[in-house]
C-alpha cells in the first residue's frame, strides 16, 4: 500500500469509528469529505476563512447530512486549499473545495424533485443547450406563424402585437410555477435531512437574529471575502474581490429584471397601463439597470470561471456552471437588444430570441447551477441557528 493509500484508509477508518457508522452509508464523494474533515478537525488552521470550519469544529463525526450541509456551506472560495499544509503533494491529499464541490453536485441530484429529474444535473451543459435550442426554435417559429416574417417594424414597438399578453402569461406562468415548485420541494427534502436539532433532539427554533444573519451572509456574499475581506481565489494564491462583485451584478441584475417584469404585470393588470412603456418608466428603468448587470456580471463570472485554477472545485461541473452563466448573460443581452431594437424592423427577431432565452432559463432553473442558491441559503441558515446553540464538545479550551 502506498503511503497515500494507507493514510486514506486510516483516516477513513477514523471517521467510521468516530461515527460508529458504517462508511457504506456514504458514497465515495461523501466519504471523501468525511475523511478530509477528520484531518481538518485535527488542524483547524482555516477557521477564520469561512463558516465551514467553525461548523466542523462542533462535530467529531461526519455522517451524510453533515457532509451535505458542510458542502453547501462551502462557497468554493479556494482560500483553504492554498493555505493547506495537507494539500497535494502532501500524502494526506486534502482539497476541501474540490471534495465539497463533488458532494454539492450530488446534493442537487439526490434532493431534486421529481427525483428522476436529478439526472439532468449530469451532462447539464447538454441539457441547457437542448432547452435553449428548442425554446429558440419554438419562439422563432411562433413569431413566423404570427407575423409571417421575423423582420418587420411593429408600430409603437408593441410586443403584444406579436404575442398577446395572455399567451405569454399562459406559457411562462406554468413553467415559472413548476420551477418554483421543484426548487421548493427539493429544498424541503434537503432541510428534512439537515435541519438543525436542538439539544433535546427536536427541530431547533429559528429566531429572527439567525434568519437576519443568514440573509445578510447570503445577500452580501460574506464568505467570498476570504475572512479578511480581501476576497477569494481564482487562478492562484492571490485574493480578489472580483467574483463577489460579478456575482452581485449578476444576482442583483437578475433581481432587478425580475422586478421590472413584476412591476410591468402590476401596471398591466392593476393600472391598466399597457406596454410598451417609455424609457423613463419604472419597468424600463429597472430592466435597463438590471439588464446591464446581467450582461457585465455573467461576462465577468464566465471569464473568472475560464481562468479558475484546475484544483478549485470540481472541473466536471464547469460545463454546468458555464451553461448557466452563459444563459443568464444571453437573457440580459437579448433583453437589452430588444429595448434598443423595439422600434425597428429587428424587433420580432430580437423578441423571439429574448423570449426563447428566458424560457430556456426557467425550464432549466431547477435542474442546473441555480440550485446552488436555495441550498446555500439553507446551509447558511442552519449555520446561523447552530452557532447560537452551545457546543456539545469541550475540547480542552483550557
Amino acid at each position, binding site marked *: 500500500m502506498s*503511503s497515500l493509500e494507507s*493514510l486514506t484508509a*486510516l*483516516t477513513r*477508518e*477514523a*471517521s*467510521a*469509528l*468516530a461515527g460508529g457508522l458504517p462508511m457504506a452509508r456514504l458514497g465515495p464523494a461523501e466519504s471523501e469529505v468525511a475523511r478530509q474533515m*477528520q*484531518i481538518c*478537525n*485535527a*488542524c*483547524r*488552521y*482555516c*477557521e*477564520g*476563512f469561512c463558516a465551514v470550519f*467553525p461548523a466542523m*469544529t462542533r462535530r*467529531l463525526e461526519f455522517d451524510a447530512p453533515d457532509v451535505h450541509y458542510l458542502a453547501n456551506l462551502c462557497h468554493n472560495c479556494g*482560500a*483553504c486549499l*492554498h*493555505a*493547506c*499544509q*495537507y494539500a*497535494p*503533494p*502532501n*500524502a*494526506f491529499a486534502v482539497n476541501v473545495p474540490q471534495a465539497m464541490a463533488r458532494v454539492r453536485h450530488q446534493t442537487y441530484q439526490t434532493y431534486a424533485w421529481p427525483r428522476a429529474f436529478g439526472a439532468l444535473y449530469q451532462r447539464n451543459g447538454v441539457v441547457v443547450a437542448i432547452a435553449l435550442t428548442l425554446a429558440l426554435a419554438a419562439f422563432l417559429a411562433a413569431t413566423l406563424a404570427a407575423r409571417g416574417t421575423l423582420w418587420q417594424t411593429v408600430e409603437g414597438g408593441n410586443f403584444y402585437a406579436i404575442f398577446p399578453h395572455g399567451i405569454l402569461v399562459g406559457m411562462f406562468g406554468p413553467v415559472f410555477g413548476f420551477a418554483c415548485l421543484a426548487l421548493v420541494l427539493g429544498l424541503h427534502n434537503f432541510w428534512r435531512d439537515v435541519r438543525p436539532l436542538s439539544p433535546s433532539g427536536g427541530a431547533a427554533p429559528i429566531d429572527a437574529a439567525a434568519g437576519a444573519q443568514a440573509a445578510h451572509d447570503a445577500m452580501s456574499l460574506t464568505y467570498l471575502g476570504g*475572512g*479578511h475581506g480581501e476576497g477569494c481565489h481564482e487562478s492562484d*494564491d*492571490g485574493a480578489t474581490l472580483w467574483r463577489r462583485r460579478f456575482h452581485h451584478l449578476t444576482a442583483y441584475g437578475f433581481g432587478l429584471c425580475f422586478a421590472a417584469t413584476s412591476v410591468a404585470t402590476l401596471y398591466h393588470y392593476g393600472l391598466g397601463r399597457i406596454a410598451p412603456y417609455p424609457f423613463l418608466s419604472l419597468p424600463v428603468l429597472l430592466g435597463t439597470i438590471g439588464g446591464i448587470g446581467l450582461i457585465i456580471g455573467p461576462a465577468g463570472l464566465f471569464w473568472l470561471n475560464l481562468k479558475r485554477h484546475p484544483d478549485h472545485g470540481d472541473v466536471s461541473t464547469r460545463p454546468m456552471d458555464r451553461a448557466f452563466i452563459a444563459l443568464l448573460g444571453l437573457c440580459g443581452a437579448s433583453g437589452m437588444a430588444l429595448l434598443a431594437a423595439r422600434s425597428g424592423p429587428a424587433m420580432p427577431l430580437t423578441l423571439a430570441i429574448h423570449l426563447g432565452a428566458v424560457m430556456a432559463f426557467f425550464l432549466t432553473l431547477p435542474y442546473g447551477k441555480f440550485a446552488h442558491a436555495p441550498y446555500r441559503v439553507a446551509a447558511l441558515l442552519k449555520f446561523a441557528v447552530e452557532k447560537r446553540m452551545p457546543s*456539545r*464538545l*469541550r*475540547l*480542552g*479550551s*483550557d
Partner: protein
Amino acid sequence: MSDSNQPSDSWDVVVIGGGNAALCAALTAAEGGARVIILESAPQAWRGGNSVHTRNIRCMHDAPQDVLTEAYPEEEFWQDLLKVTAGKTTEALTRLVIRESATCREWMRGHGVHFQPSLSGTLHLSRTNAFFMGGGKALMNAYYRSAERLGVAIRYDTPIDRIEFDGKRFVAAFSGSERFEGLTCVLACGGFESNLAWQREAWGQNQWGEWTADNFRIRGTRFNMGVMLRHLIDQGADAIGDPTQAHCVAIDARAPLFDGGISTRVDCVSLGIMVNSDAKRFYDEGEDFWPKRYAIWGRLVAAQRGQIGYAIIDAKAIGRFMPAVFAPEKADSLAQLASQLSLDPKTLVSTVEAFNASCREGHFDHAVLDDCHTEGLEPPKTHWARPIDTPPFFGYALRPGITFTYLGVKVDSKAAVHFAGEPSPNLFAAGEIMAGNVLGQGYTAGVGMTIGTIFGRIAGAQALLACQQSERTTHVIA
C-alpha cells in the same frame, strides 16, 4: 542598489533557504533596495520549509492588541523561556527577540499576513500567541507574493551544497556547478531534522542496543538536510547546541515519516495515563497544562524501549480533547485494549488498577490545575487524575515526532555567523539554523516563528547595511 548592468549572477543579498526566516530577511533587504535572490531547495509545491506547518507567533505586548488578549510583558516571556530551556539560553539574544516581537506584526501585516483569533480549543494561547489566518502556509504565500512584488528573484529546486569563502567573508554559494555570487549572504535553511542518518548518528544506541532515532517521525519538511549547517561547522563556524536537542513531541505512531504536521498530535495524555511497551507508567501526565508540556513527551517517549508510548483513556475523556487524525484502538475491557495495542494485558490491568486506587478525586476541572491527584504512586499524576474505569477504553500508540533540531551556528545580536569567536562581516544566519542560541532545550508554542521572524529581519537589515558599506556598491548608492 539595483544596477541592471550587474551580471545577473551577482547579488547584493543571497538568501539560502525559503521558509519564514529566509523570507523575512529577503523582504527586509529588498525593502531597502537590495538586489536579493532566494535559493530554496524544495520545489515550489513544497516551498516554505517547516513554516508551512506553523500556526502562530509568540509575541510580547503590554496591553490587548487585535487578536491578543490581556498583556504578555517582556519579563513573563523571558521567564517562560528561562523555565523551558532550564537556563540553556543566551539572555541578550533572547531579550532582543522578545522586545522586537512586540512590533513585528505591523510589518508582517504590511506584507499581506492576516491574523485571526485563537483557534477553537486553544483559548489558553489567546494571550501569548497571535494566530496566522489560514496558518503558516498562508503566511508563506503572502511573503512570496510580496517578495515577487518587490522584485526578489526566487529559485526553487536549488539546494546549496557549499559556500566559497574569503577568510570569514562570504563570496558565493554553489548549487552543484551553478555559482551565486553575492555581497552578503543570509543562511536561513533550517536544522538537520530531515537527515535521518545524521539523527541516527547523533542519538546513537540506547541501553537496549536500539538506534533511538530509527523510530522518529519528522513532523515537518523533508528538505531540511542540514547540508549548510554541516558545511559551516566544517568550515570553522562556531556551533551552538546539542544535536539531540530538538522541538520533539509525541505524535501518533501512524504518522507519515515527513510532513505530518500538527494533525498527528494526540492531545489526550493529561486526561489519562501514558505507559511504555512494558505497560508501565513513566512520567507525571498531569504535571502542567498540556500546551506547556506537549513538547516534553517526545523526548520522554524517545527514552523508552522501542521509542513508543501508549496513551490510555476511558470514555470520560471523549469530547474533551482536540480530535485526533487517526482512530484510537477501542475496547470494552482494558485487557482487550492491551492485546490490541500488543501490550501485556496483565501488566496494563495492574498498572491501571494501581493508578485508579491511588487517585484522590476532588473537583475535576481540565481548565485549571485541579485537585485531582494521585497519592502514593510513583511517578505521581499531580492533576486531572481520575480513575480509568468507564468503558469503552481507548489507546493511542505514540512515537517521538521531531519538529526541528537545535544544533546551530552561533550568532550575535547582528545575526552574524562567528568563526573562532569573530563575526563574519557579511554572512548572517536566521531561523532554525541559529535557534539554538535562544533555545538550548525545551520549547514553548510559537517561539520558533518569533525567532525566525526577528532574526530574519535582523539578518536582512544587517545584510543591507553590509552591502551599503561595501566598496563595490557605494558608487551605486550615491
